[in-house]
């Protein structure tokens, strides 16, 4: 299983281009981090990948099938999305929200099978929110809600995970748990793609990095190649130096000044 985009071009109606000639390949067994400043096209890319936006040019291939030729339901069995805009005011319990992840499987009026409920509880446990199962979703904290939404994506049992800022609202302990979970899912043979804003923690768990800038790919490859100081200052306009003293640790030097040559 892999996910490919070829020469993707996308613009919202009456808007400027958001994605320009983007070609990428995401393989099973690897965690890919999508980096880039606000508005660089990361979320739009994810929404093109699962077919909820239709690109004006280029192809999206899920395995060997064109996303444009699959129904929303077929795609939902292949790709589980964690998006940034789940409504807060959902009148469901946390368990019911996770069970919505079983929607692409089975008939519409069907009751939740004991297997579905069992699976949903396991997913809640993986995200450390098992004790919130019967609580109302709209009464949870932001971080708890986010973990319930990720549990819903797990319950979809899809071979591809597209997570848009999955670590938002999470404390540092749960961020680490989340990234380890992503690694575990990749190790089971899944494609995992995460949009990340955090340049300190996420890079430790990412096998492959993509840096987007204004709708184009600025750099792609290993995390060390992509998150070089030159790239960071060019794309984000911030003076950060990242070092990897060992494989599993990271050191960052941040100078909160405007870098030379940025014109600011």
């Amino acid at each position, binding site marked *: 299983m892999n996910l490919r985009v070829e020469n993707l071009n996308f613009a919202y109606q009456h808007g400027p281009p958001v994605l320009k000639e983007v070609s990428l390949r995401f393989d099973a067994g690897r965690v890919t981090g999508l980096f880039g400043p606000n508005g660089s096209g990361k979320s739009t890319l994810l*929404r093109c990948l*699962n077919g*909820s936006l239709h690109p004006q040019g280029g192809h999206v291939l899920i395995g060997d099938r064109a996303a444009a030729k699959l*129904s*929303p*339901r*077929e*795609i*939902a*069995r292949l790709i*589980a*999305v964690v*998006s940034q*805009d*789940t*409504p*807060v*005011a*959902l*009148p*469901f*319990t946390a368990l*019911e929200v996770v069970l*919505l*992840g079983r*929607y*692409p499987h089975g*008939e*519409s*009026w*069907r*009751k939740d099978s004991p297997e579905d409920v069992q699976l949903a509880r396991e997913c809640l446990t993986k995200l450390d929110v098992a004790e919130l*199962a*019967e*609580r*109302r979703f*709209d*009464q949870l904290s932001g971080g708890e809600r986010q973990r319930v939404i990720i549990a819903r994506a797990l319950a*979809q049992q899809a071979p591809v995970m597209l997570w848009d800022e999955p670590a938002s609202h999470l404390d540092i302990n749960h961020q680490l748990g989340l990234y380890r979970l992503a690694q575990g899912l990749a190790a089971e043979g899944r494609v995992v793609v995460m949009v990340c804003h955090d340049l300190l923690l996420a890079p430790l768990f990412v096998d492959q990095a993509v840096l987007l800038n204004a709708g184009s790919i600025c750099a792609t490859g290993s995390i060390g190649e992509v998150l070089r100081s030159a790239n960071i200052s060019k794309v984000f306009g911030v003076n950060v130096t990242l070092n990897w003293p060992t494989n599993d640790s990271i050191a960052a030097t941040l100078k909160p000044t405007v870098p030379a040559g940025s014109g600011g």
Partner: protein
Amino acid sequence: MTLNQSADNETARRDARWLAPMLLLALLVAMMVALAVGSVAISPAKIVQALLGQSHDDVTSQILFDARLPRILAAGFVGAALALAGLASQTLFRNPLASPSVIGVSNGAALGAVVGVLLSARFNHEGYGLSVLLSLGGGLAVTALVFALGKGGRYFGHALLLAGIAVAALCSALTTAMLYLAGERLQSIVFWLMGGLWLANWREALLVAPVTLLGLVTLFVWSRDLNVALLGERSARDLGLDLPRLQRRLLLLIAVLTSMAVSVSGVIGFIGLIVPHLLRLITGADHRRLVVPTALGGALLLILADTCARTLASPAEIPVGIFTAVTGASVFLWLLQKRRPVGTP
């Protein structure tokens, strides 16, 4: 706090299993009571005898089968249709305060019916059939108009609600204007505006029954889709639901159910708002547990309200809309005092 709430939810889930059977039982009891009371009281024994076809009392049979039973059945099916249309509206707009009236469909259907009354007066025609037809047409036409005006909006709900409110106001202004043209037909126009079931006969009961049953089955079959629809367009799409298609279908279903109900009984408010809202407090928002109790609850409420309407001031009739509005509004106020409505932030 945490434990109490989770216990609340557990209890709610357990209660929900008994809800549909209990409502069905209550409905049967209410129907028996409704058959028994009226200008002539009929004892339960006689009712059972007549229902089994063993009655030799022709007058009793006539009252039961020609007057009371068809009216009770019509009330039940209309009440169920209104409650189901209310549930569909609340899910469509992801707003527990929505009802079919917010998209103008009840006002459109009432306008159609009133035009029917006036036309048939002009051409000296009995006219009831024409009113039924035009109220169906009015409801569907208004829904189509509101959909056409509202679909350009960025967010489905907002533009549609605004268009609905504007078109509803327009329809009700036109209807009020027609009161001045009504002359001796004023009485029958007031019927459409205030709602009532005194014209309901076997014809009406048999007209609305299949539509209500169709609505019930359809909403039940869609119940998981409706759950996912509460997530909003993007997340629904991510889970594999084509939400715009479901929204168009729901709109059509609401239009058909509501127009059909108005064409039989005039505009009866508050059932569509209050029944799904109240039951959601017991079952939670899962439509697989909510759809059937909503239909039963709507039927129960309108049968009770109609029984009060025809007996309290007998032989005069009180418009049933007054009862549903009074009970609906008071229950609603009580809920607002007690706890915030389900689904509001």
